[in-house]
């Protein structure tokens, strides 16, 4: 009887586990894992890229998002889910290639790769162009609200350490982008592996902590648009999106230097539908689709052919396409060694957890422990006394 119940339970459990996988052989699907707010989704009269893809190929897209390269990496590493297309940034692609987590692409399925400019081929993260196809490129700069922050202050990253704007400053919530800002302030390379330089950068970042409103990623859109925060470092393309909502926002490329990045499409190991994934990559490389997509995103196109379809204003925007003089201040990220990445993660955690008022909490805790101890001691003594009293009463009775 017991056994039967047990097996029944187990069978039920298995059934429950098996339920949410309704594999429909009829419709082909792919799973795309991309940054949040990073594809034209049909709002504001834009092109719904995913729907257009399904219409063109009949392949259904299961679309999921992440908010930083690091959280994407963690999701891939922890497993449990499989993705067919991922769109990480340069240094992360280098790391994924080094850890053998990407599938080489079959470029015969991606004829539209011909449109990708030479400048975006053979990059350091994927020198032989075997694993990735550029999606967009962009830069990091300072977004600020002109009602509160002066243009002069916003010329330098030091603005993010300016006590005048305390409580109104946002900061990147990922170690690589945050460290890059500190490194450019200190004149170090973005790709330094020198521990003392990294430590200096972390110290500089901890100085900033009390002035910050929050460490954010995608939440930045609302906070800057509403004027809840006044100044924040973020990606140039996203500034263009925010500026549409709040015209008081301005953008600057700080004098100390800034990061230039390429986000590229890759296929991770364990993908379920490689042909479908390649069809998706090919579709996004189509100049017309690329232009419609970037029109919405505000990021920059890695293919000149797409520029012809772009809105003139965007194609001429100094934010999306900075001039060569400005670009001379930019530098890209290389993937760092595993050791350095680990060290940076540790430093980043210590930055985010530093500066707590330890003594106050310690004193409070010690006081509480003493009080509790005293309470039990007194109640014990009382109990004993009462017991003794009762014994005496009982004896005399």
């Amino acid at each position, binding site marked *: 009887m017991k056994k039967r*119940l047990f097996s029944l339970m187990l069978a039920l459990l298995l059934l429950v586990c098996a339920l949410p996988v309704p594999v429909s052989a009829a419709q082909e699907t792919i799973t795309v894992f991309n940054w949040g707010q990073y594809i034209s989704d049909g709002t504001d009269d834009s092109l719904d890229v995913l729907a257009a893809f399904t219409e063109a190929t009949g392949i259904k897209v299961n679309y999921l998002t992440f908010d930083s390269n690091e959280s994407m990496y963690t999701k891939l590493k922890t497993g449990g889910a499989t993705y067919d297309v991922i769109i990480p940034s340069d240094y992360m692609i280098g790391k994924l290639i080094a850890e053998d987590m990407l599938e080489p692409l079959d470029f015969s399925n991606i004829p539209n790769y011909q449109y990708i400019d030479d400048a975006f081929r053979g990059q350091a993260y994927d020198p032989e162009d075997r694993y990735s196809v550029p999606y967009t490129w962009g830069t990091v700069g300072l977004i600020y609200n002109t009602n509160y922050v002066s243009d002069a202050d916003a010329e330098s990253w030091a603005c993010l350490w300016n006590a005048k704007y305390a409580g109104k400053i946002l900061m990147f919530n990922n170690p690589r982008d945050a460290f890059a800002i500190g490194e450019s302030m200190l004149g170090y390379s973005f790709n330094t592996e020198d521990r003392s330089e990294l430590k200096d950068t972390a110290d500089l970042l901890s100085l900033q902590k*009390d002035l910050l409103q*929050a460490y954010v990623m995608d939440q930045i859109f609302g906070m800057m648009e509403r004027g809840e925060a006044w100044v924040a470092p973020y990606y140039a393309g996203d500034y263009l999106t925010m500026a549409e909502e709040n015209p008081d926002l301005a953008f600057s490329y700080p004098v100390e230097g800034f990061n230039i990045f390429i986000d590229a499409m890759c296929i991770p190991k364990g993908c379920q539908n490689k042909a479908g994934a390649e069809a998706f990559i090919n579709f996004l490389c189509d100049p017309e689709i690329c232009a419609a997509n970037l029109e919405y995103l505000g990021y920059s196109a890695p293919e000149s052919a797409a520029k012809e379809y772009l809105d003139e204003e965007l194609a001429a925007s100094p934010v999306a396409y900075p001039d060569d003089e400005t670009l001379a201040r930019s530098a890209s990220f290389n993937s760092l060694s595993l050791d350095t990445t*680990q060290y940076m*993660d540790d430093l980043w955690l210590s930055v985010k*957890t530093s*500066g707590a008022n*330890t003594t106050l909490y310690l004193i*409070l805790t010690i006081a509480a422990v003493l009080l509790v101890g005293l309470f039990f001691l007194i109640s014990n003594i009382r109990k004993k006394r009462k017991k003794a009293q009762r014994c005496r009463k009982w004896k005399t009775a």
Partner: protein
Amino acid sequence: MKNKLLACPYIVWMVLFTIIPLGIVFYYAFTDSGTGAFTLANMASMGSYLPIFLRSIWLSLFSALICLLIGYPVAYFIAQCKPSTQRLLELLIMLPMCMSFLLRTLAWVSMLEDTGIINTFLRHLGLAPLPLIRTNGAVILGMVYNYLPYMILPLYSVIMKIDNRLLEAARDLGCTPVNTFTKVILPLSAPGILSGLTMVFVPAVSTFYISQKLGSTGTTLIGDVIESQFKTAYNPNLGAAMSLVLMILIFICVSIMNRFGESEEETEVIAKV
């Protein structure tokens, strides 16, 4: 025999989803993230997170006490009502729990923000805006708001069961209302107070969303740090070690609370003798 059988489903459930995962947490806490070899390094690094552990415990203890102060009179009031009103009021207490916890916290953000509803209103009245959000107070408010029902419901069910004849007897024997409360009602509702405190304290101490939304960069709680270890930093070993330490700290706190309950019960028994 039959009784054992009844427990079967839950035992299977618990082994699968509590005991085995706990074992995995243990395993991770004492192994190295790279090599998987046994190490005490994760545990040894706990010292640097001491202030964050303490802050989490203090803020949630404080919230639990505020919940008690707010919840007790409410529970007492509900217990005094007509049964039909009681059911309605109970439903109202549970009503906010029907909405997502994340949504409720986000709603608080848009109320408390510098550009939020309250401050916009104040500005229209010509008053200076208040620094409401990103303080310890805002975090405690979020905790109290979200966990208050967990305090009221156990209190209510205990107070409701107090025998009215005991109160009459106390009055007949010359107790003032204050005395009746302190000598009869309060000791009899002690189990409700304890389970309420535990049910607020335990989820509050490990929460990770409230402090991110309502707190500042200086009110990071241990739940936030644990979340970041699993979500972005890819260091489940350190995260597991933190969870383990947190679990032990919770056990200590809850057992101290229970000791208070025991000593109260004992004095009560002694008083009766």
